[in-house]
């Protein structure tokens, strides 16, 4: 190598290094950990990761976050926790201590969020969960003061679905016969445990009830038995693969019910993508106010930035959690997380999902519980204090 070239190379290298260092100093390091592999990778790819991408792109396009009068760009460091709680814990530690993250975003799903709660608590980062549904909100936020809950209590999600059926029956729209199934896994069992007594208390006749193991491929015997029991309403506390599987079997069997409910993933855009017009009238867990200008604007931006539509349940909540964090940082003008957390506790926030005001248990008490596919959109029909719920429609055939 000639001497001059060597000199040139080293100076360029040095300049890049200096520039790199200066650049890194100004940036706000955002730590993100969630599944990219393992059983929950599919859900995280729909609900979690695209929102981080969208948010960071938007903030950086605006010139970054305003922290105490200084515009600072966001820089994301992502880790895959392989859907393994031990990896989530370790990744959060790594983000805080090796990568010196200024903010760490809450992980994905109920289990991984709860496993990470002690670490967030000890490191003093606010953990605004948007994909954790649990009945232990009081206990958890009592022990981990920096943990916030957007998605609500699992009991409400199940009870409200039963209430929708009760209302339809009271209105004389459907009969008294209910068939109810569940996937035999954590959340499916939990929802069934709440819904079964609720159905019985509401005076319904439970004409068919069964459960199936996680990962069951052939759901046709179940749907045949459901059809044989001749129900007026069908409810499945299901997970993504079986939500699709059961709906498909119901089409094949031409299950003739006026109310058809499947749980997790009914709110995914892929559900309508898969079933098209047959999705019309299918009810499911979640929902949003699709008519609100804030949500419509968000959905359009989400699609433009990531190439995919947001789902109609937790996606908006995930984005709302980022909006809350953003507002708390800009208003307090600091990256001091204790101050940011206190601000989140003390204030109400305007988000794409409407106003969010945490109660004394750090819980958002106003959320969507039941939605329904109507005219190509999954509209919220039942909530615990949100505006814009539409009237449910009856399911009429699978054409």
């Amino acid at each position, binding site marked *: 190598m000639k001497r001059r070239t060597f000199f040139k190379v080293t100076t360029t290298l040095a300049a890049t290094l200096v520039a790199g260092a200066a650049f890194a100093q100004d940036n706000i390091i955002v730590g993100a950990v969630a599944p*990219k*592999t393992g*059983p929950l990778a599919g859900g995280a790819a729909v609900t979690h990761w695209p929102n981080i991408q969208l948010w960071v792109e938007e903030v950086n396009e605006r010139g970054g976050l305003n922290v105490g009068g200084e515009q600072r760009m966001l820089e994301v460091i*992502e*880790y*895959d926790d*392989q*859907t*393994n*709680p*031990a*990896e989530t*814990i*370790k*990744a959060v*530690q*790594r983000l*805080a*201590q*090796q990568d010196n993250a200024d903010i760490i975003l809450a992980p994905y799903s*109920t*289990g991984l969020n*709860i*496993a990470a*709660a*002690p*670490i967030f608590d*000890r*490191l003093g980062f606010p953990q605004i969960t948007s994909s954790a549904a*649990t*009945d*232990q909100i009081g*206990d*958890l936020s009592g*022990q981990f003061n920096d943990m916030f809950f957007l998605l609500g209590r*699992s009991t409400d999600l199940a009870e409200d679905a039963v209430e929708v059926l009760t209302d339809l029956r009271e209105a004389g729209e459907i009969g008294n016969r209910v068939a109810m199934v*569940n996937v*035999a*896994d*954590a959340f499916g*069992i*939990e929802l*069934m*445990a*709440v819904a*079964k007594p609720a159905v019985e208390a509401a005076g319904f006749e439970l004409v068919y009830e069964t*459960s199936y*193991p*996680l990962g069951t491929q052939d759901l046709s015997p179940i749907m045949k038995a459901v059809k044989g029991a001749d129900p007026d309403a069908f409810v499945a506390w299901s997970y993504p693969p079986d939500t699709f599987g059961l709906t498909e079997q119901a089409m094949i069997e031409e299950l003739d019910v006026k109310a058809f409910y499947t749980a997790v993933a009914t709110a995914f855009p892929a559900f309508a993508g898969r079933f098209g017009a047959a999705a019309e009238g299918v009810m499911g867990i979640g929902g949003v106010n699709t008519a609100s200008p804030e949500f419509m604007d968000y959905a359009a931006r989400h699609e433009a930035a990531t190439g995919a539509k947001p789902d109609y349940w937790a996606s908006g909540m995930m984005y709302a959690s980022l909006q809350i964090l953003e507002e708390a940082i800009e208003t307090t003008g600091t990256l001091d997380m204790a101050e940011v957390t206190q601000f989140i506790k003390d204030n109400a926030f305007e988000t794409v999902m409407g106003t969010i005001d945490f109660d004394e248990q750090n819980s958002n008490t106003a959320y969507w519980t039941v939605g329904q596919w109507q005219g190509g959109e999954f509209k919220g029909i039942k909530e615990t204090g949100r505006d814009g719920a539409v009237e449910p429609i009856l399911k009429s055939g699978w054409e």
Partner: protein
Amino acid sequence: MKRADWQNLGWGAALLVVAALLPLTGDGYLISLGVSIAMYTVLATSWALFSGPTHYISLATAAFFGIGTYVMGSGIEYINYWLLLPIAGLIGGVIAALVGLATLRLSGVYFVIFTLGLAEMTRQAVTWYQNQTGHKGTYVLTELTDPHIYWQLLALAALVFLLGWAIGRSKLGFALRIIGDDEDVARHVGINTALSKVALFVVSGATAAIVGAMIAPRYIYIEPATAFTPMLSFQVVIMALLGGTGRLWGPLVGVIPFTLLWEAISSSFLNQTTLLLGLSFLAIVYLLPGGFVGLYDRLRGRAKKRSAMA
């Protein structure tokens, strides 16, 4: 005991004390790495106690780990934490004995297949029970933090090492080595081969169950998918083989580099983790057939030969 034994014990105790000082650094990241290393050390060492001498590859670690996790998860509301640890060990041990009695009379390959299915079977049994009883989520909310869990695992590791050392010196250890060399010969010289194998399988099953119970407060929310993850069984086997099962300290020298390698890969190559992991497995098998223990013995043998020639 010979002088060398005392010396080894002394070294072991000194290493244990040094390891126990780790949480004093106050570095949470180091401590969480330490928890991983301590957990896999216990699991891999107790695995090798059974599989090392007998050459029976057990893929049941996840099953016992999950059982321990669920014992803690379902008992913590009613029973003291410290009582639950031995209870978990006891239940794990009893199940290992039943499984061992049923399968260890069979030859190796049947045993591998059966243990592979055991984790899934136990998981299904747990979900079946939860489904029948209308279960509403398992939570283990305690005051225990990572340093506490780390120290508990270290103490358990010390126990396992002592036990392994004692077994190695006992008649049972001798019997197992003969079984590993030739099971027919062992039977002909009057060793109760089934009983010896079951005894060691119970030790490794009980240990894995206690580890599961100790880790439960770390996960807080217990789900079948995370308690019975089959990945765990494979990781333990790979780590133990990387270290080598010929010696008691073999798995330990496999666990430490493997955990660090895994950490380096998963933090630097987000989207190629599985690929790189597979490549490192291949490298391990090709370059280190006997694990680090084999390498150490080979090098020592070569050095001896050289000194003999000189």
